[in-house]
């Protein structure tokens, strides 16, 4: 089983579907990963893509369900071995990476959609249930757990996403991407 990212923590075995957690002591079998139903996608695991002339390698994906549909968070490795996330939700593509920025509110739970917070405009608050993953991820996930997020627009296609699952806030910063600009390196 190949590991493509040095900070990978969770890997789904492509043969048996087992979830393997990697820690300092070694590899630990934590259960069986649920198989994701095949759905049409512009991305394929380990098939490199170009976004605005920069190379990205899709290493893993998490699928979240919101009832009638789902969205996917693709874990990408950038040109300098950096961690990127490409969110794909029915034609809406956002490329982001972790950011250390201070936000002009105390808790994302108190934010109201349509209101302005400093230079940010709150555009979406939502949640989804984690239904499974494929490939490798830089952290462990809990299948079945509810995932909460907040979208803050900075205008001009710039977006900040705050994930606030389990009381831990993770901030991501990035841009909306036109899916027609995504090209496969090996078409």
């Amino acid at each position: 089983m190949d590991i493509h990212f040095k900070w990978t923590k969770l890997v789904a075995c492509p043969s048996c579907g087992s979830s393997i957690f990697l820690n300092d002591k070694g590899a630990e079998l934590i259960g069986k990963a649920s198989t994701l139903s095949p759905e049409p996608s512009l991305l394929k695991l380990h098939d490199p893509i170009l976004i605005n002339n920069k190379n990205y390698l899709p290493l893993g994906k998490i699928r979240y369900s919101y009832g009638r549909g789902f969205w996917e968070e693709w874990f990408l490795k950038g040109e300098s071995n950096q961690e990127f996330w490409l969110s794909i939700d029915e034609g809406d593509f956002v490329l982001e990476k972790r950011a250390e920025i201070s936000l002009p509110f105390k808790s994302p739970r108190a934010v109201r959609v349509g209101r302005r917070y400093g230079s940010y405009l709150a555009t979406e608050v939502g949640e989804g249930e984690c239904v499974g993953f494929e490939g490798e991820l830089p952290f462990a996930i809990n299948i079945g757990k509810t995932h909460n997020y907040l979208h803050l627009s900075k205008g001009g296609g710039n977006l900040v996403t705050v994930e606030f699952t389990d009381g831990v806030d993770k901030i991501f910063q990035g841009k909306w991407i036109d899916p027609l600009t995504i090209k496969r390196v090996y078409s």
Partner: protein
Amino acid sequence: MSRVQSIKCTNCAAPLNLLGGGRVETVTCSYCTSVLDLTDNYKVLSNFKNVKERHKLPFELGMKGKLKEVEYTIIGRISYMETVYVEHSWSDFLLFSPLYGYAWLSYEHGHLLYSKRNRTFPNLTWEEIENRSEVVVDRIDYKPYDAYTAKVTYVEGELTWVAKYGDKTNYIDLVSSSFGITVENNGKEIEFYNDEYLDATEVYEAFSVPKEKRDKEQGFHPLKPFSKPFFKTLSKISLWFMVIMGLLIMAFMFDGSGKSIASFNASNIQPVKEPFALSSTKYLTAIYVKANSTKALNNFNIKLFKDEKLIFSLTKDNAYIFDETTGKVSKRLGSWERRAKEIIVYLNLEKTGIYQLSLLPVDSAINSIVEVKVRESSSRLNYLVIFTLLLFFFFLIYYFFVWQYKRKHNSEKEIDNDESIFDHIDDWGQVIIWTVVILLIIFFGED
């Protein structure tokens, strides 16, 4: 994302295909017009039963076609009517692609637009957008064109929100050439859409719309690109030819300015027969005759001899060219205008040598004096100038259509922007063009 499903309408049990993705919230039954909530066990939310407006359009639910390199399926339709100007109505068809998501095909009296959600609009409030004279999005300047409120008049198929009859939405249309941005405010949120005008024939072909169902565009649409390819090409060609003609005219004016070879006066009491020596047959020989009155000019017969043989005669009634060897009339020409006080006769004299020009009074009792000048190597530019003016006319036709289009565009505009002097550049262009025309007429008219 979701798979295609088939359900039964919970109101009338009609079979309904669900073609859209996971973001679809409602489906409106095409048979009983009930709006079913997909997020709540297909509960009937409302009904469009009493809605009379359900006119047939070229597009139907389930049609598939490729637009902007994306394979789309038409999954829903929503029709709107402006609340004030009720003639302004349109239908939006919701398009879905499993890979590229949702888009809209907007149909307005045969005009077709492709719309997709815009995510790069600056963070502006509704009021800020309303009061802006321009908004820059993706480095393109958009100008507010129209602001209005419209209400929902008809819904069919799937939608990503719950739409009810009469639901109102406020709009601001921003325009930049054939591209636009529609700002929508439904009271809960503001959304932005990139609009692009589409060639109707290409869309009909893409969605395999039968020819008998295709509509022709009616009226004006601000995003419809101005297109007159024939007149544009004609204008370009005319411009190049005008440059060539201009250079030719200048060359002929310089080279064919002529050289004076005779100058004398004739009167009713003193008929003349003056010789002149022609040293060059290049270009034409010009004979200028100038009188102080019409009557005076009309009192003379002009004759030209070469070696004592008549080769040309001109009176107020007729003009003849004679064959030098036989002495017979070889060509009959028209004479001068009866009201003229001066004339220029251009002759193509083929031989150099001595010629004699005679001016004989018809009635020696009429007091008349004329001044005569003969110039050799004179170029005649009239035809070149007329041709150049004709080219200039062809050149102008295209710009006339452009001007007409811009006038229409501005007259349809509902929002006045702060305009700079550069917005009137076309008006200045017109002033320049007409000034050039008048100058040309004055300059060449004097000849």
